[in-house]
């Protein structure tokens, strides 16, 4: 996985480019696959195969659907799912010595990735993402202020 700052900024940038209003649920989707798996594998490595399905498209579909049902809104499901899809897409560009992403689980154990960079390589681009994220955030806040202020003329 790239770091979560990269995932969040990518999610934020993509969403702002496509939709006029930011939904935090899309950003939550962009971090969801790692949030529901990595803490367990870091603390209890033996749990790897138990949590692995939560980082696959079918598993994520079920997690997003469960949260969508819980909140009672289709938009929550769609935003979470969109963010999680973006996360999975970005993860595909990474390299591992063995066992990468089981996109076709539970139908196949074939793992897939593009082998472009090591998972920690995204850190070298982190300053760029932080500056971009701050710039986009300031633009968003300014946009909201302009909408909120009444016209005086």
């Amino acid at each position: 996985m790239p770091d979560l700052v990269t995932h969040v900024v990518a999610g934020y940038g993509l969403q702002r480019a496509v939709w006029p209003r930011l939904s935090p649920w899309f950003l939550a989707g962009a971090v969801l696959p790692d949030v529901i798996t990595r803490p367990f594998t870091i603390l209890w490595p033996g749990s790897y195969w138990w949590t692995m399905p939560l980082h696959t498209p079918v598993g994520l579909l079920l997690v997003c659907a469960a949260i969508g049902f819980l909140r009672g809104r289709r938009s929550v499901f769609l935003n979470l799912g969109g963010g999680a899809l973006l996360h999975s897409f970005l993860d595909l560009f990474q390299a591992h010595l063995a066992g990468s992403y089981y996109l076709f689980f539970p139908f196949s154990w074939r793992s897939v990735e593009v082998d472009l960079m090591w998972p920690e390589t995204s850190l070298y681009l982190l300053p760029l993402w932080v500056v971009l994220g701050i710039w986009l955030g300031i633009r968003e806040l300014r946009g909201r202020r302009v909408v909120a202020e009444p016209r005086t003329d």
Partner: protein
Amino acid sequence: MTVRILGVVSCLLGLAALSFYSARTGSAEVDTIPEIIAKGGLPNGQEVALTSDVKITDIGADRFVAQQGRARIGVLIPAQLKPTWEETKPGIQNGDYVSLRAIYRAPGYLEAREFHVHKGRRLKIWVSLVALLVVGLLIVKQVREGSNA
């Protein structure tokens, strides 16, 4: 309301089934040290791949100890990987993450075939926690405002 509850329960049951199937079947591609130890070792010469949250401890001239959770196993660096090891070793600290392909040697150590030390992984985890905090705050704000958009 009933539909929502049924929906959540169905999804959770589906996830439980997927997890159980994954844990029972697993992939032959990736091993874990707890698995290797639980089996009481492996046949001599069997290939293993450790890629998930393995830490380096006890760094030596031509060996290190790989640790996953509480489970530990020694890893020997063979002559052909020595140049790579010498090149990598200066920047390594105890607790850095590593991925490796290796051969199991009886009575209980690994002989590396290929390895990669993820030197930035610990920083990556801390950086990710900051991003997680920001997203968490946005979600809490959204839920408090009662908006699901």
